[in-house]
């Protein structure tokens, strides 16, 4: 009689599977760190240089904060959200196009575990990029942190939100063109037009109203409040908006994995 392996018993949560998925997601970006970490740092520094050289003379202070100090948290946030989004979306689209998505769908991982694994991978990429860009920029800009709690909350909440959006985009996309279009025509404009580079108080009334409907605005505003202590809106409102947005997106992702939307035949 041969010893057949006994079926593995999992508790309520498949911790090992979840941890494996998370490690896969993290190693995927760490192995190409020049593209995933060094590149955003260089791009962010370039933006800082370009904006201060182009506008530094004309715009010395924004809401009582020196221009570079105002700009820097916005740039950090932009790098974080773009990378958190890129991590989950590219992971899912590549897996779908190459067909190895089955290796993620077949193991005994529940929809909730899949959502957590991918989302944490994207969040980690966002946070690592955020820390790297702060270190890179601290050579040129004074990063004094006024409210560390707000800075940390918004860094995490924004990375998580974009990681979840990236999952939704990745699951929806059938080819690279689709996800490139989502990045170019939705994510980049939202990131650019949410007060990364300017205070929305300076905008015409109509644009201010529009900006308040954009969740990206709250994360940048709240994150900046963490550093500079100045915000365009009530910081607690930002915390509420981000919490609700994340909860909703989380449910959407969970539902997508549970129903197998564009994943299972």
């Amino acid at each position: 009689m041969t010893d057949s392996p006994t079926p593995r018993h999992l508790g309520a949560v498949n911790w090992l599977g979840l941890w494996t998925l998370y490690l896969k997601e993290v190693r995927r970006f760490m192995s190409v760190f020049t593209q995933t970490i060094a590149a955003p740092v260089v791009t962010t520094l370039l933006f800082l240089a370009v904006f201060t050289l182009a506008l530094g003379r004309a715009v010395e202070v924004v809401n009582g904060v020196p221009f570079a100090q105002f700009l820097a948290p916005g740039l950090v946030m932009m790098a974080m959200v773009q990378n958190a989004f890129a991590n989950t979306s590219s992971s899912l689209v590549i897996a779908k196009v190459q067909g190895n998505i089955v290796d993620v769908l077949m193991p005994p991982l529940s929809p909730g575990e899949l959502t957590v694994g991918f989302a944490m991978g994207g969040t980690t990429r966002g946070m690592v990029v955020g820390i790297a860009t702060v270190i890179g920029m601290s050579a040129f800009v004074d990063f004094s942190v006024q409210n560390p709690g707000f800075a940390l909350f918004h860094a995490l909440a924004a990375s998580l939100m974009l990681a979840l959006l990236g999952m939704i985009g990745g699951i929806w996309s059938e080819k690279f063109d689709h996800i490139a279009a989502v990045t170019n025509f939705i994510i980049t404009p939202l990131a650019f037009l949410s007060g990364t580079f300017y205070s929305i108080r300076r905008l015409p009334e109509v644009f201010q109203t529009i900006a308040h409907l954009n969740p990206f605005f709250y994360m940048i505003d709240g994150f900046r409040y963490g550093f500079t202590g100045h915000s365009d809106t009530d910081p607690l409102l930002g915390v509420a908006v981000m919490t609700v947005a994340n909860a909703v997106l989380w449910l959407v992702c969970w539902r997508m994995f549970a129903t197998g939307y564009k994943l299972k035949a």
Partner: protein
Amino acid sequence: MLENVRYRLQAEGLTPVIAPPAPRRFGRVNWLGAWTVCRRDLQRNIQEWSTSFLAPALQSLLFAVVFGFALGGADAAARVGDLDYVAFLAPGLVAYALLERAFETTAFSIVYDKLERMINDIIGAPLTPGEIVAGYALAATGTGMLAGAATFLALLPFLPGPPHSIVATLAFGAAGALMLGLIGLAGGLWAYKWDHISGIETFVVVPIVYMSGVFFPLDRLPGALHVVATYNPLYYVIDGMRWGLIGRAGTDPLGGFAVAAATDLALWALCWVLFHIGYKLKP
């Protein structure tokens, strides 16, 4: 049908004779071959027009809007000479979109061809190094200029008026797109994975273009950097396009065009040599 005919012929003891096709003849230049290499990349970009042309146009539009908002009413202080800042910026953004798209066209095409081994179909075809370079480089020039045209249309509201000189705009645009197309070609030949080519783009090409007068006049750079930047041929291209589009220039357009043309010639020669010796292509 054809099979039936052959069996019937064989049954009757006859063997069909199929004449081999006559070798194709062409003159000194294989025009059809060079055009085929060029057309392939052009078609690829036109097919993916939203990524190739719409995305750079939108990106430039975003830059123009964001810089305008960031000024927040401090327009007077931001003027470049007597020019509104955004009017100064718009031609730079047209040049930027054109240059970046031209680089990506050859760079990604050649790396893709190498990784997928399709490059053998080009090396094996009766094409001289000059024809191959022309095929790739002209596709990049065309694609870059189309991206520039799309960006120009998107930025029309920010430009002070119709182009000052269409001829100069097109000449500098073509010279710049060719320059970046050739740089992309050389870079693509050197790279042997995606990491390398995107590294060249992120760490070399984009920083150099950003610091060549797209966003601000060069005299805002600190001392030593300013001197270095004036030796950069891309500065003359961008400045020349700005002269063509709005009639303002920091340099003499004719001299600038001479610099751009000489750089193109040198890069063309480099690419020709790389294909001639089969650099990283032939064992």
